[in-house]
């Protein structure tokens, strides 16, 4: 469904991603793991059209998308829930969600709103509240909810557990697995290695803008190199 091949991208001519390749199949949860600064967010930005790529290919459903604008990529059904949430702080929860279907999913807006409220009941209690006054966890729910409003076929989540309490991280991962159970493909970009590997079927480990390990989540869980690097064991 998503194919990234030999991708080179960066900022101002400085390459951050150095020939990176990953795949996501329909309906699959794929984890993309890596320490701070390895280029995870840069990868997401390149895929979703926020930054231009230098070389390599990105295909979604077989069609090249690396030259498309961010709104056109949204229209194709590839939705990116960004790091830092990037919700609209000056607007209500409901308006934030409505704007999720600005480009895609507009005809089913009312039904999708209900669906999102079903997944995140806390958002329903706060429909009129300004998004900027939500707690961090609620903001993360809103960001995911806004993404779901566009009826994604593939959703990329950039560190959804960042800044959440351990209990809320549990809850967030449970919700993500529930969303994925509806058949949606999920690319889960995380530093939270253990929990991500519980959820994902496959995973990639990035270092320095390239894939250094890839395989099934079960194999990676037992890989001593991963344990050593990320868990200090």
């Amino acid at each position, binding site marked *: 469904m998503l194919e990234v091949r030999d991708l080179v991208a960066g900022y101002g001519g400085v390459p951050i991603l150095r020939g990176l390749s990953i795949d996501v199949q329909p309906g699959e949860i794929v984890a993309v793991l890596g320490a701070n600064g390895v280029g995870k967010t840069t990868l997401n930005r390149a895929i979703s059209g*926020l930054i231009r790529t230098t070389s390599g290919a990105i295909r979604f459903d077989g069609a090249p998308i690396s030259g498309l*604008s*961010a*709104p056109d990529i949204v229209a194709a059904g590839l939705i990116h829930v960004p790091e830092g949430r990037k919700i*609209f702080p000056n607007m209500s929860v409901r308006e934030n969600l409505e*704007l999720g279907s*600005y480009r*895609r999913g507009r005809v089913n807006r009312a039904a999708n709103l209900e669906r999102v409220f079903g997944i995140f009941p806390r958002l329903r209690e706060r429909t009129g509240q300004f998004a900027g006054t939500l707690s961090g966890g609620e903001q993360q729910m809103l960001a995911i909810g806004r993404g779901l409003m*566009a009826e994604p076929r593939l959703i990329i989540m950039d560190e959804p557990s960042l800044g959440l309490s351990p209990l809320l991280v549990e809850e967030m991962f449970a919700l993500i697995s529930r969303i994925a159970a509806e058949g949606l493909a999920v690319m889960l970009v995380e530093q939270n290695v253990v929990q991500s590997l519980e959820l994902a079927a496959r995973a990639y480990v990035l270092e320095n803008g390239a894939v250094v390990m890839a395989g099934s989540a079960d194999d990676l869980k037992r890989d001593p190199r991963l344990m050593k690097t990320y868990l200090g064991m």
Partner: protein
Amino acid sequence: MLKFDIFLSALANGLMTGAVYALIALGLTLVYGVLHIINFAHGATLTAAMFAVFVAHSVFKIDPYLAIVMLTPLFFGLGYAVQRFVINPASHGNDSNILLVTLGLSIIIENALLAGFRSDTRSIDVPYGFSVIEIGNLFLSTPKVVAFFASFVVAGLLWLLLARTDTGKAIRAVAREKTGAALSGINVDHIYAVTFGLGAACLAIAACLLMPTFLVNPRIGNAFVLVAFTIVVLGGMGSIAGALVGGLIIGVVESLSGLYFGESLGQIGIFLIFILVLLFRPTGLFGAKA
């Protein structure tokens, strides 16, 4: 008793002028709120719109109120195109470049008008130009009353657009969170241009409302834009409600200080307010955090 009537009439006149000031300030504050830049071409655009009303009337015999339905979409389109195809590409995403580009545009527009119309002051003659509405001892100029209510209608429509429509919500979204907007499928460049177009459209309406009682020359916009800028600062940069309330306040202040200190000093009250606001409440009456 007579004194009170004069006061009332100055107050009413101030409110009526103030509503049109508010309309001019609306475009300025909207563009500031979304693009975070001061549009230096605002005054020149108003001048151009006023000349457009003048030409429509003197050449094509079109009534200024009828001209609203033609000039509003025309100026929306012009504002849209100029932002999207000139200002945006020329500024390379750099705010200080946008300032310079709009400044350059204002010089071009002003000089083109000077070349086309010379520096003469012109006005139009409409049959209702001097008609008045009588309320008790109060005589109100009909075109000014029309301008007063029309300004509120326009402000109300603008508010509805921003509050209720997807485009309006997208404008508010882009104002605060460009990346989040792009990832929701909003074309940020398009929304910037729409915002600019709305600003220009407000000016076209203001021009149509002003011309029955006002005159035009190639520099007329500057006088208005200084006042509009004061209103934007007073009301709070980027605030629609602030522009409306600020416009009315400034209109009344100008009119009353004209009454008590003489016509030529009328504007002093405005700039006094400007300085006081900057000193004591730099965020303005309805100002949000920077």
